[in-house]
């Protein structure tokens, strides 16, 4: 069988999956947990607790602040210390709720047993019920973008969902959280997929996994056959060629079902696909079957110079410093601390930034590994054009942004850029292509928005 992949561009970066075989450990409880109110795309959540309130694990501490928003739950038990601001992954001070941890008392509604709950025993689960439980549990996309999951499951009337695609690609170097989750909770993930298919009212599912994770492909193929053979659902595990940015939603849809999502504002469901991260499928299982809101996640803590890199089940709100200490402490010298992987992760200004819903990895690169070289003149080698997975011309967009030609930027489809960084990764002249394109893209999007507002 020909191994599938997406059709345009892409690169191959060094994998550095240092923690591939490191079984997940449960991270220690923090002394103080910090909950940013903006952990998802959309409006920030609104606090519903006050200073001095007692909370348990799983207590709602902030409600959704709009339609595109998600509630936030405490991951610890203790007392609300204050509602304040703290530096988050953006580098700015943002509103947060800080809770002093006392003991570990859980809300009684949460089913803490390990028993696998199957859909068959829960006739009350209608599509509407599933979507509402997912919404109420604050589940968002766990791959990093953090788009509220319930919205993806209720597509606009103009689009019709045909399948659910589970994103188990994990194409970013270093990160292994999704892989470990698959190896350790395959059954739960498949129930999660079943729930997602029920909610989206489809019977076809795919799980896309890159072939550098043969163990996961084998395990899930076996489990899928056991679970879905003879059922109303058709689920296929799709091995994918190793190529970045295959975990990008549009690239994954193209790779798995050979359909290309048109330019924004089109979304995957316009070509019939609902894409959910494998971590999200697990969160959906826990939310729907175990009544457990989203307050902990799998996170990889990694870096070549870390003493003991590992995978952790972390309560959200845990400062990264705690995890780094659990891995042997911050390496000597200058470092780059990333929320996410080296291709798309955000460089952080502080080790006190907490783990949030979308933090799939804490990656520590040494200065040597991450230092940019001095840019040289473009030699027009066309390698950026060749690797761009969106069929754009990065050299041109970067230049047009540099000279602030926003009109032409828009005409050259700058808003299609998914900011994967393949161009800059490849550029032999070390040009800061994506820096410039980002500037152009955000400016052009601003222009488009203000034009729409005038109409």
């Amino acid at each position: 069988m020909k191994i599938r992949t997406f059709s345009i561009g892409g690169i191959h970066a060094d994998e550095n999956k240092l923690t591939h075989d490191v079984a997940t450990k449960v991270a220690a409880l923090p002394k103080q947990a910090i909950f940013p109110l903006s952990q998802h795309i959309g409006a920030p959540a609104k606090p519903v607790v006050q200073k001095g309130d007692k909370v348990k694990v799983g207590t709602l501490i902030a409600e959704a602040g709009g339609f595109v928003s998600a509630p936030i739950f405490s991951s610890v038990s203790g007392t609300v210390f204050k509602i304040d601001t703290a530096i988050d992954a953006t580098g700015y001070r943002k509103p947060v709720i800080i809770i002093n941890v006392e003991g570990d008392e859980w809300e009684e509604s949460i089913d803490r047993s390990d028993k696998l709950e199957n859909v068959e025993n829960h006739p009350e689960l209608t599509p509407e019920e599933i979507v509402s439980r997912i919404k109420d549990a604050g589940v968002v996309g766990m791959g990093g973008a953090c788009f509220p999951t319930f919205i993806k499951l209720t597509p606009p009337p103009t689009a019709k969902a045909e399948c659910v695609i589970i994103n188990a690609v994990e194409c970013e170097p270093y990160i292994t959280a999704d892989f470990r989750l698959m190896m350790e909770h395959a059954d739960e993930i498949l129930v999660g997929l079943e729930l997602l298919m029920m909610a989206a009212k489809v019977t076809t599912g795919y799980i896309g996994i890159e072939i550098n994770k043969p163990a996961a492909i084998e395990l899930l193929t076996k489990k899928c056959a056991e679970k879905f053979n003879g059922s109303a659902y058709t689920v296929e595990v799709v091995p994918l060629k190793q190529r970045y940015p295959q975990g990008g939603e549009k690239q994954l849809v193209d790779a798995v079902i050979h359909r290309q999502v048109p330019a924004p504002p089109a979304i995957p469901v316009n070509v019939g696909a609902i894409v959910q991260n494998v971590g999200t499928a697990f969160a959906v299982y826990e939310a729907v079957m175990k009544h457990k809101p989203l307050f902990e996640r799998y996170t990889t803590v990694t870096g070549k110079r870390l003493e003991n890199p590992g995978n952790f089940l972390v309560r959200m709100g845990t400062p990264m410093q705690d995890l780094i200490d659990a891995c042997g402490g911050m390496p000597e010298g200058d470092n780059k601390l990333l929320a996410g992987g080296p291709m798309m992760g955000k460089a952080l200004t502080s080790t006190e930034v907490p783990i949030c819903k979308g933090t799939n990895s804490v990656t520590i690169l040494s200065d040597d590994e991450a230092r940019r070289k001095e840019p040289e003149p473009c030699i027009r080698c066309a390698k950026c054009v060749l690797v761009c997975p969106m069929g754009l011309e990065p050299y041109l967009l970067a230049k047009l942004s540099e000279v602030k030609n926003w009109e032409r930027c828009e005409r050259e489809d700058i808003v299609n850029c998914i900011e994967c960084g393949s161009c800059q990764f490849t550029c032999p002249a070390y040009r800061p292509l994506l820096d410039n394109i980002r500037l152009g893209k955000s400016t052009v999007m601003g222009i488009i928005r203000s034009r729409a507002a005038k109409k």
Partner: protein
Amino acid sequence: MGKLIVSLSPHVHGRQSVERNMYGVIIALMPAMLATFYFFGLGSVIVTATSVAACCFFEWAICKYILKKKENTLLDGSAVITGLLLAFNLPSNLPIWIILIGALFAIGVAKMSFGGLGHNIFNPALVGRAALLVAFPAQMTTWPKIGQWDTYLDAETGATPLSIINWAIRNGDATILEQLPSSFDLFIGNHSGGAGAMGEICALALLFGLAFMLYEKIITWHIPVSILGTVFVFSGLLHLASPIYPDPLSVLLTGGLMLGAIFMATDYVTSPMTPRGQLIYGVCIGFLTILIRNWGAYPEGMSFAILIMNAFTPLINNYVKPKRFGEVAK
């Protein structure tokens, strides 16, 4: 604890570099260079050494004294490539002073006056060759025979396969073509008579270079294949129409076609940025080459065809776009 460093993603780089690509091209040129030395001996060594040294000197001197750049661009390897390619376009009995003028044109006029690597419109080595061809037509069109190991300026010259083809077409006499060496001799470069410019001699060695550059992903197949394919088809049709036009295989193996298609037209700076643009560029070069060869004043059209298409490259870049992801057919 040290500092935390902050910058935008991506945080890693793929270890590509300008130098890596340039030195890759130089390695790819080595088989052709060795073949040249083997067939032309002393003269070719002198011409190559002079050309490379002169190009490097002009690059360094202009960078340092005229452009006053902080970092000298000599070490990026592009001047060495220009020097090698310029030499490959010259006869092996060319006097040193003419080579120096060619190198000054290539580096000084065609490259550095536009701002250096990445900014030039025309292929520097070809500009050097074109300038010499116009200024010194006699010296630039007498071609030594191969196998004269220890000769330089006094090498015996003769008619090249291209001039044989040119006579045949001009006289409308297909029997003249019988003087052409066999395709196999043309392929490996072993033929009596004048042998043309130094680097063109051995198609086999040039193809080794192509294979290396494709394997190392220094270039893609689009430009060489579209040029060679177009030449093959166009000259094949002409050959079918009238026997005074040589068979397409001989056309592919004579003159600077291989050298041009593999090393000159694929120059990063002066060729289009998109695969589709590169195909258009290659097809046009192939087409123009045959037009000039068969109906122009010069027996060889490759270098002019490439220079003409260099001029069209900005236009091609402007109008030929890659297929956008998710583009709906309009």
